[in-house]
């Protein structure tokens, strides 16, 4: 059935880079979420021209396309529905540094950490550092507008992407943004970042080179009560300090991590807070002292500053391997990702514990506290009958609690399939319709990663002919009918 499609793709790429065997389809039927899909043909282009050839072949055969990087996404963004053509970028790994413009052009399959390693000898790095940085791709980072601990001061992926070469869903090529100061037109680059594979395929990405800071200090503050830790986070920000990173871990995750890697975390602490300040030495010294003071004033038992690079790396290793450590507690986890106003952190955290208790689930919290980005981790054993229902029910309550506190559905993992049903909680129908129009500008026929992000029915064709009566109703209720 896929015979001619495979033959055409094999001719354009090469037969060994076009797969449609069952094993491969199962492998590429899922990402790091709990969702599963159904892959059609899976291809591995090397160049922009090959990506274009894939997109055009799909067009000719009326097949949807789904871009995929490393498959570490947690919202099902790369999960294929209804056997689309899967375009996997893992073999597109070129890196070209342009020091004059202080950017580096990468192909989308470059691994986040490989890029930073490549730049290190030049004195630069790529600032967004997702905890998955050892395996996630730059294309995935762009598509999800990914964050990481160090995005608190440096900004998430969008702030670091200058230009993107994109193969549009119709097979044409466009460069969005540019290296020049003021590219013409509206900021299409910004619209593409975070578009979760729904607006085309990024084939080359120019990201800013961030100079490595001359000085860095990493602090570990240890609290008896999670409430004190949360209060300390808010107090640091309120004191006018914007550290490079503020991460918080509760007791359960701290214990799991400590058993896993021996990072030197206090296992009797109710919560720990990891703070990093960087920049020129004067500011680093000042902010280190300030953070210490604030934490002590909020009741910290101790505040330890990493004495050397080895200790610093160990403190971070603990944080960055937290998800691996969880496997020692239970075989499965469901990681949530919501953002709440920083001043509501404590309030929502309390609700998260209560929700997990009500559903008789274990919850662990390790998260980007500095920007209010919660990551409640529900750990479970999927073999236990009925447990998935409880996990999903608890998840929905966590999402609602975050929104009711004035927060948003996702801080970095995106909407994909996972959060799609909740979009209508955060947005009114005119809001969703406007987002659907933005997507339509790039993909009028809905060929690229269809049925993701926006719930079905978001685009209301009749809005253009809205009469006064319906306008009043929409303004009053935010929904049709």
């Amino acid at each position, binding site marked *: 059935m896929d015979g001619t499609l495979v033959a055409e793709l094999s001719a354009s790429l090469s037969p060994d880079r076009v797969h449609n065997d069952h094993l491969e389809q199962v492998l590429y039927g899922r990402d790091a979420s709990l969702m599963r899909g159904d892959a059609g043909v899976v291809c591995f282009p090397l160049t922009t021209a090959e990506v274009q050839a894939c997109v055009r072949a799909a067009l000719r055969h009326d097949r949807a396309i789904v871009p995929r990087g490393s498959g570490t996404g947690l919202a099902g963004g790369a999960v294929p529905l209804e056997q689309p053509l899967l375009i996997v970028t893992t073999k597109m790994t070129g890196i070209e540094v342009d020091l004059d*413009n202080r950017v580096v052009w990468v192909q989308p399959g470059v691994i986040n950490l490989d890029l930073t390693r490549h730049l290190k000898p030049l004195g630069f790095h790529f600032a967004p550092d997702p905890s998955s940085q050892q395996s996630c791709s730059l294309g995935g980072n762009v598509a999800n*507008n990914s964050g990481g601990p160090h995005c608190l001061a440096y900004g998430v992926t*969008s702030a670091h992407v200058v230009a993107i070469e994109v193969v549009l869903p119709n097979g*044409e*090529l*466009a460069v*969005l943004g540019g*290296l*020049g*100061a*003021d*590219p013409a*037109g*509206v900021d*299409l*680059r*910004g*619209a593409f970042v975070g578009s979760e594979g729904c607006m085309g395929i990024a084939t080359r990405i120019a990201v800013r080179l961030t100079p490595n800071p*001359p000085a860095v200090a990493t602090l570990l503050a240890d609290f008896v009560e999670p409430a004190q830790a949360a209060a300390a986070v808010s107090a640091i*920000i*309120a004191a*006018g300090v*914007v550290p490079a990173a503020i991460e918080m871990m509760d007791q359960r995750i701290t214990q799991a991590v400590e058993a896993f890697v021996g990072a030197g975390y206090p296992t009797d602490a109710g919560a720990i807070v990891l703070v990093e300040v960087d920049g*020129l*030495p004067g500011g680093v010294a000042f902010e280190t002292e300030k953070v210490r003071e604030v934490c002590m004033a909020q009741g910290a038992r101790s505040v330890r500053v990493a004495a050397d690079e080895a200790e610093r790396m160990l403190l971070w290793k603990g944080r960055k391997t937290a998800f691996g450590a969880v496997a020692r507690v239970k075989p499965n986890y469901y990681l949530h990702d919501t*953002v709440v*106003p920083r*001043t509501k952190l404590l309030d929502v955290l309390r609700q998260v514990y209560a929700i997990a208790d009500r559903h008789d689930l274990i919850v662990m919290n390790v998260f*980007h506290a500095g920007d209010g980005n919660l990551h409640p981790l529900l750990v479970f054993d999927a073999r236990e009958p009925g447990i998935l229902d409880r996990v999903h029910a608890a998840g929905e309550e966590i999402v609602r609690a975050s929104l009711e506190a*004035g927060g*948003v559905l996702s*801080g970095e993992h*995106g*909407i994909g399939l996972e*959060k799609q*049903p909740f*979009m*209508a*909680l*955060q947005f*009114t*129908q005119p*809001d*969703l319709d*406007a987002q659907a129009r*933005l*997507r339509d500008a790039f993909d*009028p026929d809905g060929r690229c990663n269809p049925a993701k992000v*926006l719930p*079905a*029915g978001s685009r209301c064709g009749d*809005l*253009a002919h*809205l*009469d*006064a009566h319906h*306008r009043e109703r929409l*303004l009053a209720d935010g*929904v*049709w009918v």
Partner: protein
Amino acid sequence: MSAGPGPLAPLPDRVVRDPVLLAFADEVGGVDAGPVAVEGGRTQWELGGRSEPGTRLVRAPAGVVAFEPAEMTIQVRAGTTLDELDAALEPAGQRVALQGLPRAATVGGVLCVGLSGPTRLGHGHIRETLLQTRYVSSEGLLVTAGGPTVKNVTGFDLCRVLVGSYGTLGLLAEVTLRTRPRPQATAWLAGPADPADLFDRLYRPMSLLWDGETVWLHLEGYPEDVAVQTAIALEAGLQPMAGPPPLPTGRHSVEPGVLRRFRPDRAQRSGFVAEFGVGVVHGEWPGPTQGTPDASVVTLNRRLKQLFDPTGRLNPGRDPLAPSNGKADHR
């Protein structure tokens, strides 16, 4: 009409019931209410083309709605002037990265024009400050784009295309902006120096201006760090200065690398002031400039306009693709 996205309805607080915003939406009106544009401080009124005669002008509401210093965000009406914004933030030791602008300019106008100011090297692009906006669509509906928190990737990012849209996709009524702490120390220095050499020796300066001969350096931060960076600049031949040079009229965009390589001859110097490391050039630029956008980028811009404003009633005459080269006046 479609059934709507599933059984869930928006949480009560996500439907805008603020009478000020509803009144603004009514003033803008629906598709039958004809061409309309927002008049801000008129400080960049000519940019992006001439407003079509017969366009009804409205004013966006003004004033601070909410400021919670510990959140480091501020919610203001789009018609608030930069002066008012700054006055609200100053007592808390904060500011928004929109420095060096005409004080009468409105927040909405600045964002809709979307041109960053001379501190972009240090602060990043002004688009980074916009977290959420409530705007009135061409149908006269209030739409919320983005979210109020400092981090958010929920859905497609409408805020990005509204910045720099000249109000041709929607009329901004209210915005939530990211704030930053004010620096403890600042310094300006100037003198003849090689800007590339200086740039490479400094750590994240706020601004580095160059007229082909003289370099102006703006530093901000903790006093000790500013002192250390100042010492580097003094060694390079710069002297303390009261502030930046007057920026000549005209604005060009180049790749920052072009400024590194360009060696102006005597006659070419002093007609321009370039933002080193950024690529904005004020005045008469004698060097190579940016090419025209791809045909596919033009098509995407046109399609976006068609989808957001099918009847063409929002700020007719203005076009974000119109070349701003040489046209933009600095105050």
